[in-house]
C-alpha cells in the first residue's frame, strides 16, 4: 500500500508545484470574472450612451413619451421639430441620434437614426413605450378609465407545478434556477474533464513513451502503479475543489453586501433544494471518474509521447456529446434519446439533472442513474487497470486508436 501512495504523492506534488496547474485552476474563474466584467462594462457603456431622440408628433404624445421611464433613450424637447430641414441637419451633425415620427392614431411610427452613432439602440424600448401609449390612447377613446386601462395591461400570473408519470409530485419552487445550476455543473465538469483527461493521458502515456516504465515496474507492480496514478489524479481534483471552495468562500465574504450590484445570486440560488445539489454534484463527480478511466485506457496503448494527445482527444470528443445533449434536453426533456441516455453512464451527468429540474424525472430516477454510474466506475477501474497492466510493455507503431480497434476486432 505504501508504494501506491508514494506514486500518488509524486503525481500530486509534480503537478501542484507546476505554475501551469494554477493557470488551469484559475482560468475558468478568470473567464467568468472577465465575462461578468465585460458584460457590466457594455451595460454601463449603453447606459452612459443613451440615444438622444427628437419626437415629431402631437404635443401630448411628445410630453407623454418624455415622461415615460427609458434606459436606452432620452427625449430632447428643445429641438425644433417643425423645421424638417433643420431636423435632418441636426441628425446628420449628431445633435440628435434619431428622430421618431408618430402620427396621431399611432398607425404609422417611423424611426430614423444616424448609423454612425455610438449610442445604444432604443428601438425595442421605444416600441414597448409607444405601444403602451397607443393602448392608453385607445382605452381613452373607448371610454375606459385610467384604472380600467391599468387592469387590462397587467401581466397574468401563471403558477407551475410538476407532476411526473407515477403521480408523485416533484416540487421545485424555481425550476429555472435548478436548470441553470445543472447547466453550470455541466460546464464546470467540461472544464475539469478537458484538463484532467489531458493530465491522465500524460501520466499514463509519458512513462511508457519515455521508456521509464521498465525501471518503474521493476520497483512496483504495474497494477499498483496504476492505482497510485489514479489516486494522485483524484488528489489533484480534490485539491482543485478545495481551492474553489476557499475562493468561493472568500468571494462570498467580500461580495455578500455588494453582490446585487453584480449579479442577484439569491434570485438564482433560492428554490434549489439540497437534494438536487447532491444529485447533480454526485453525478458530475462520478462522470469525472468514468472519463478519467476511459482516458487511461486510451493512453495505455500509447507507445510514443507524441501520440498521447491523439489518444486523449478521442475521449474529449466523446465528452462533447452529453454537453450538447443537455441543451437539447432543456427544450424537451421527454425525448426518447434524453430519457434513455439519462441512465447511461458517461451521458447521464448532462441529462438527468436537466430532466429532474424540468420535472420529467424524479429524485428516485436520479439515484438509480447515480447507482448505475457508480457500478460502472468500479467496473471501469478494474478494466482500465487490467488494460494498463497488459499493455505496459507492448510497443506498437500504430496509433493508440488503431491499436485499440485491432484488439477489439481480434
Amino acid at each position, binding site marked *: 500500500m*505504501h*508504494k501506491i501512495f*508514494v*506514486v500518488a504523492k*509524486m503525481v500530486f506534488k*509534480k503537478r501542484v508545484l507546476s505554475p501551469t496547474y494554477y493557470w488551469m485552476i484559475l482560468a475558468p474563474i478568470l473567464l467568468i470574472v472577465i465575462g461578468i466584467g465585460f458584460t457590466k462594462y457594455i451595460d454601463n457603456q449603453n447606459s452612459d450612451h443613451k440615444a438622444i431622440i427628437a419626437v415629431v408628433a402631437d404635443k401630448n404624445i411628445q410630453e407623454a413619451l418624455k415622461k415615460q421611464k427609458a434606459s436606452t433613450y432620452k427625449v430632447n424637447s428643445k429641438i425644433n421639430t417643425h423645421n424638417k430641414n433643420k431636423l435632418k441637419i441636426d441628425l446628420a451633425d449628431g445633435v440628435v441620434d434619431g428622430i421618431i415620427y408618430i402620427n396621431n392614431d399611432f398607425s404609422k411610427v417611423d424611426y430614423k437614426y444616424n448609423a454612425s452613432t455610438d449610442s445604444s439602440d432604443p428601438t425595442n424600448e421605444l416600441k414597448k413605450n409607444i405601444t403602451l401609449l397607443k393602448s392608453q390612447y385607445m382605452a381613452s377613446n373607448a371610454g375606459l378609465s385610467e384604472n380600467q386601462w391599468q387592469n387590462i395591461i397587467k401581466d397574468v400570473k401563471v403558477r407551475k407545478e410538476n407532476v411526473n408519470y407515477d403521480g408523485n409530485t416533484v416540487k421545485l419552487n424555481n425550476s429555472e434556477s435548478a436548470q441553470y445550476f445543472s447547466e453550470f455543473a455541466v460546464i464546470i465538469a467540461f472544464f475539469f474533464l478537458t484538463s484532467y483527461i489531458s493530465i491522465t493521458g500524460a501520466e499514463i502515456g509519458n*512513462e511508457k513513451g*519515455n*521508456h*521509464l*516504465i*521498465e*525501471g*518503474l*515496474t*521493476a*520497483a*512496483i*507492480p504495474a497494477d499498483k502503479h496504476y492505482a497510485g496514478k489514479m489516486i494522485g489524479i483524484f488528489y489533484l481534483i480534490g485539491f482543485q475543489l478545495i481551492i474553489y471552495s476557499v475562493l468561493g468562500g472568500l468571494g462570498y465574504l467580500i461580495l455578500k453586501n455588494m453582490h446585487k450590484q453584480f449579479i442577484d445570486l439569491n434570485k438564482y440560488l433560492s428554490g434549489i433544494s439540497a437534494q438536487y445539489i447532491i444529485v447533480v454534484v454526485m453525478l458530475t463527480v462520478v462522470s469525472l471518474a468514468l472519463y478519467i478511466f476511459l482516458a487511461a485506457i486510451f493512453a495505455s496503448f500509447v507507445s510514443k509521447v507524441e501520440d498521447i494527445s491523439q489518444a486523449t482527444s478521442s475521449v474529449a470528443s466523446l465528452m462533447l456529446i452529453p454537453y450538447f445533449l443537455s441543451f437539447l434536453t432543456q427544450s424537451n426533456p421527454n425525448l426518447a434519446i434524453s430519457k434513455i441516455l439519462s441512465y447511461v453512464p458517461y451521458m447521464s451527468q448532462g441529462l438527468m439533472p436537466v430532466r429532474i429540474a424540468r420535472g420529467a424525472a424524479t429524485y428516485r430516477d436520479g439515484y438509480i442513474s447515480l447507482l448505475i454510474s457508480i457500478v460502472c466506475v468500479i467496473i471501469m477501474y478494474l478494466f482500465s487497470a487490467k488494460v494498463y497492466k497488459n499493455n505496459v*510493455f507492448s510497443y506498437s507503431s500504430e496509433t493508440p486508436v488503431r491499436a485499440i480497434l485491432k484488439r477489439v476486432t481480434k
Partner: protein
Amino acid sequence: MLKIDNVSKSFSNVLAVKNLSFEVKRGEVVGVVGQNGAGKSTTFKMILNFLSPDAGEITINSKKLKNDFLDNIGYLPEERGLYLDMTIKQQVLYFAQLHNYSKTKASKELSYWLERLAVKGTERTLIKNLSKGNQQKVQLITTLIHKPKIVILDEPFSGLDPVNISLLIKIVKQLKKEGTAVIFSSHNMNNVTEVSDKILMLVNGEQKLYGPVNQVRSKFEKNKVYLEGIFNTLSPSNFSGILNQKDDFPGKVLTFNSEENARKAIKKAKAEPSLTGYRLLEPTLDDIFRRIIKEEAMKNA
C-alpha cells in the same frame, strides 16, 4: 540465490526462450551474451516477474517468484529512462521509496554515490541538464541505492566511454565483494571476461554455453598461436593449416584450423632461433561466440 530452472517462453508461436537453466549465487557475477533477439531481455523480464514463463520455474532463495522480491532487486533496463524534469535527488529518492528504502538513508547516501560514479552535477541538477553518460550513471544509482541483493544490468556498458566502463566494472566487482548477485548482458566480450564468474550464452533462445568462464574457454580448441620475433627464415605461410594471421604488436597472432596444427606451429617456432616468443592462446569469448554462431548458422542452413 536466484535459480532459473528449465524455463521457456514463447510469443505468438515464436520461441523467445527454450529450456533455460542457470543459477546466480550470492557474490557471483553471471555475464549473459547473445545476439540481438537471443532472449536476454526476455529472460530478465521473467526474473523481474514482468512476464510469466510458459514452462519451468524461477525461484529466489528457493521461494517462488513474487512481487515482494522486487524490493531486493535492482534493475537497469536496456532502454534508459529518467524523469527529465526532476532533479537527481528527486529521481533517486523516488525510486528508493518505491523499493521501500528509507528516504532519509537514501538522501544521506546519495552524495557518496554521486562522488563514487563521478557524476558531473549536484543533487539539485535537473536530469535534462546532464549529458547522456551522466544520466546513465544516475539511473545506475537508482538501481543500486536501495542495496539490492540481486542486480540485473541490461547492456550496462552501452553508450559509456572507456573511463566510465572501467568505473562500472569496479562497481560490479565491489557489488560482488559485498555479496550481491549480479547478472548483466553485454555485447562486449572483453567486459564479460573481465568481470564475470560465469558466462551464459544464448543463441535463438537456447542455452548454448553455461559455466565458469575459464571452464567454458577450456572446452574449446586452442587454435591460436602468438609468435614474436623476426620472420625472415620462417614466415607464417610456412605453417600448415593456417587460416589467417593478424598483427598484434610486437608479434603476430596466427589462427589455425585445429589445435593440432597450432601445436605443430609452436613446435616449429621453438626450433626457429629468430622467433623469440611463442605461446598457445586460449580462445577468447569473442572467438567462441563467433564459432557457435557460425555452427548454428550452418546447422540451420
